[in-house]
């Protein structure tokens, strides 16, 4: 039925972030057949490069009440259907001396108008519960913010969708669209060395920041602007709750709990291009200086990593054809651009990904004549055993519980046992994939601790060779890929203890292993070094 170069489906989804995976699940639950193509891996874009905040909505009560109310509603839904991905930490909004006192005074009524529960907290009590708060704190409100693991959310959404028949194609890039009048007849996709034609009745562009590029490829442009956001990961967790700065949205106004660490952010810098996005030392310094006004220990905290993502912001309503549904996210039907089977869903928040998927699925189903309603607001997201390894502490618990003779600890920072790597590897393998070290890193805590992979990456590779999964020189290439990616985030926070850590990493990988010279070592043919300068 499906020759290697041709396949058919009802809906082709482009993009494997929070929205794309939620859409695959939504459609699968309505009995619609779909394929999700992702040029890289799950959450490779903004979905995997944000602070993991499940918004109460309080952040937007003044600037965008519609988004605030959507966040409030969606936050409550995700807490009930995807509880395993959420740490219900609660959140504080904190003002310090010098902050706009009028905004502080208006905040409770703004929250009330958006239906968001905000309770004033006594300053002494707040500082007893969150000792890192500044002595210069002048107001604290408690709101129902929470922390969400975006990787687990997307991985489990996709796993659920797959269990219902959806297909996932990672590392598959859209090359072009074959147009036939008002329809896209087929989408050409590069997967590995092979080119595939996908014929789909409906196509949804859920490519996040890359949606502009895709829409242009389909000759149905949408206007979008890109904003780069940088975040910092601390070595230890500084606060148990989400701590927001009580002011209008601005740089460095949040500290998120993220399991065993805290995440400080963010910046917002307009950028033109999507490649070559990396955190700079200037952004890091800005975040440290500004966030430390609210939480002074951040000034001297050890940071283990920084990362940057690109937020897509959709242009003014109507600008790109179709209609912008709200300022938060946008759904384009492209019909006034002469296309009846393409939709673009982009912008928005991690918190509203389910809603965005629902709106896109509603459009697609209407076009397909499918009348089954959306089920994602009420259907619990099933726990998928191979998707839970991004949770800090889970692998440690598993390892302590069943420390079997044939199970070794591969990562000592985050206590990742060989068994976790096996589970992830085997699950990907079962999908017909050739899993890489980077794939394993995305789905586990490997490389997430203080050593940033210096020790656990070679150990994991050794483990995979011992299992017979890796052959030839592949391990070396994967170690270099993995470090390359980690390094982009690490280099802007290298001072103090983390600089000493990075020095050890280079001493091992360059000093002892000579990884940077292997091309040269092999070129000097007979391994003895017969290169005579």
């Amino acid at each position: 039925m499906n020759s290697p170069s041709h396949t058919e489906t009802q809906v082709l989804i482009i993009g494997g972030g929070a929205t794309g995976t939620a859409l695959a699940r939504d459609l699968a639950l309505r009995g619609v057949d779909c394929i999700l193509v992702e040029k890289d891996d799950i959450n490779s874009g903004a979905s995997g490069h944000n602070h993991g905040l499940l918004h109460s909505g309080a952040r937007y009560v003044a600037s965008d009440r519609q988004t605030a109310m959507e966040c409030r509603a969606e936050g409550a839904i995700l807490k009930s259907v995807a509880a395993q991905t959420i740490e219900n930490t609660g959140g504080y909004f904190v003002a310090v001396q010098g902050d706009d006192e009028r905004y502080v005074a208006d905040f409770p009524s703004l929250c009330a108008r958006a239906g968001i529960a905000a309770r004033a907290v006594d300053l002494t009590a707040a500082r007893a519960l969150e000792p890192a708060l500044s002595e210069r704190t002048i107001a604290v409100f408690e709101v129902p913010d929470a922390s969400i693991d975006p990787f687990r959310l997307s991985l489990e959404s996709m796993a659920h969708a797959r269990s219902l028949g959806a297909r996932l194609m990672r590392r598959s890039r859209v090359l072009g669209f074959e147009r036939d009048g008002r329809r896209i007849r087929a989408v050409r996709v590069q997967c590995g060395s092979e080119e595939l034609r996908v014929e789909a009745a409906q196509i949804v562009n859920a490519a996040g920041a890359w949606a502009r590029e895709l829409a242009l490829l389909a000759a149905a442009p949408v206007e979008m602007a890109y904003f780069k956001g940088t975040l910092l990961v601390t070595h230890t967790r500084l606060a148990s709750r989400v701590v927001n700065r009580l002011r209008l949205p601005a740089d460095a106004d949040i500290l998120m709990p993220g399991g065993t660490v805290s995440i400080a952010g963010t910046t917002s810098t307009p950028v033109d291009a999507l490649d070559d996005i990396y955190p700079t030392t200037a952004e890091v310094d800005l975040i440290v200086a500004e966030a430390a006004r609210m939480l002074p220990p951040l000034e001297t905290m050890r940071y283990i990593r920084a990362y940057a993502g690109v937020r897509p912001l959709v242009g003014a309503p109507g600008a790109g054809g179709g209609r912008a549904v709200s300022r938060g996210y946008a759904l384009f039907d492209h019909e006034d651009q002469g296309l009846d089977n393409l939709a673009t869903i982009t912008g928005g928040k991690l918190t509203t990904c389910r809603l965005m998927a629902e709106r896109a699925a509603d459009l697609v189903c209407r076009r397909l004549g499918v009348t089954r309603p959306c089920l994602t607001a009420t259907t619990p997201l099933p726990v998928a055993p191979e998707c839970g390894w991004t949770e800090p502490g889970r692998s440690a618990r598993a390892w302590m519980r069943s420390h079997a003779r044939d199970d070794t600890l591969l990562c000592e920072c985050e206590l990742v046992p060989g068994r976790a790597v096996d589970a992830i590897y085997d699950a990907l393998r079962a999908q017909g994939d050739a899993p890489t070290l980077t794939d394993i890193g995305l789905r586990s805590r490997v490389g997430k601790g203080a050593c940033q992979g210096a020790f656990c990456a070679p150990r994991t590779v050794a483990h995979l060779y011992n299992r017979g999964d890796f052959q030839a020189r592949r391990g070396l290439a994967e170690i270099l890929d993995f470090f390359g990616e980690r390094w982009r985030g690490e280099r802007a926070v290298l001072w103090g203890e983390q600089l000493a850590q990075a020095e050890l990493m280079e001493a091992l990988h360059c000093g002892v292993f000579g990884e940077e010279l292997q091309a040269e070592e092999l070129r000097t043919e007979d391994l003895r070094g017969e290169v005579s300068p």
Partner: protein
Amino acid sequence: MSSARQDSCDVAVIGAGMAGMAAALFAAERGLKCIQVGNSGGLLFASGLLDLLGVQPVAEGRLWQSPFEALAALAREEPLHPLARVDARSIRSAFDSFVAALGGSGLHYAPLGERNRKVLTSIGTIKTTYGVPRSMIAGADLLDARPPCLLLDFRGLREFSAAQIAATLGERWPGLRHRQIEFPGGEALPELYGAHLARALESAETRARAIALVKPLLGDAHAVGFPAVLGLARSGDVHAAFEAGLGVPVFEIPTMPTSVPGLRLLRALEGLMSARGVHRHHQAGARALTFDADGATATLELEGISTGSGGERVFARAVVLATGRFSGRGLSADRAGVRESLLGLPVQQPASRAAWHQRDFLDPSGHAINRAGLRVDDAWRPLDAGGTPAWPRLHAVGSILAHQDWMRSKCGAGLAIATAWAAIDQVTRELRGTAAG
């Protein structure tokens, strides 16, 4: 103890890594009364291989077969590099002395020659080095002909996979086979630790059981490679016993740090310090270093878990600073810049933190921060902000020095040993002219 204890010496060496150990050893061998301060734990990260100079220039990744030709090129191209400031004869003498001393302490190296050697690493890469422990040399010798060989690992020794090494080299070395075996006595353990295995193999019985397990696997193997766990204090004997028992050359491959070869080096050097009468304050750190007005004596205040409330003072006629870089704590960095940790000596460094590191981890040029460090005069004296020596008898050696990137040049041990030799040479000459302390 309430009153401060005091001690005096000719030369105080601050630091107990490779450079500090070499400096203390060379000082003692010249009859200087030496006190050494500092934790030696950093040596655990050593591989046991003694690099001299493998790559020059770094940006071209050019490998040299002769370290001495590489040194000559370095002297032409980077005259400020610390190794370019030590003459070749001194470097040879330094290595000969260091390796001979280690041999006397039970850690034997293969004879040092004119050429660099290539050895296998635990991830299957090939590394250019110079001084190779006797227990590893057969592996280097085999890289010429690549005859059929057997690589072994022990189940549970998680950072060493013989399968990985064989697979990585397989295309170029088809006769390289691999097997995993159970470590005798470790069958029930999920994880094995190199140091435990090394100690266990010093028992003749465990060794015999290991040899009996390996022997039937030999086949056509001309040699057998093991992870570097063949003995600790008596590694020479253990290695010899394996060769005798198996009837073929046996070689070790260094494992990931912290490794048994690092531990052997640490033990051998600590043994040498005590044999040569170096007084070690190995649990203490240097809290402060001051110099008297007439330039005759330095006072070192110590701080550490072994000292009483009054602390300890060391008076020294000369001081060698061998405190290393960031992981050794000789240099410290915050967001604004790099400082020398003990005295606040000026550090040669890039203009801003944005220039410290390249965008790519393996950028061929290396990271600019790695060339930051202390500037010294021809007598190895760190320079103050005005460009003059900070104190007439304060000398700096090893990786804390500026204008070098030992990780990329493959010159770590060479930098430590050669600059220690040259600085102690200088100290000896300085002190010879003055009355004994």
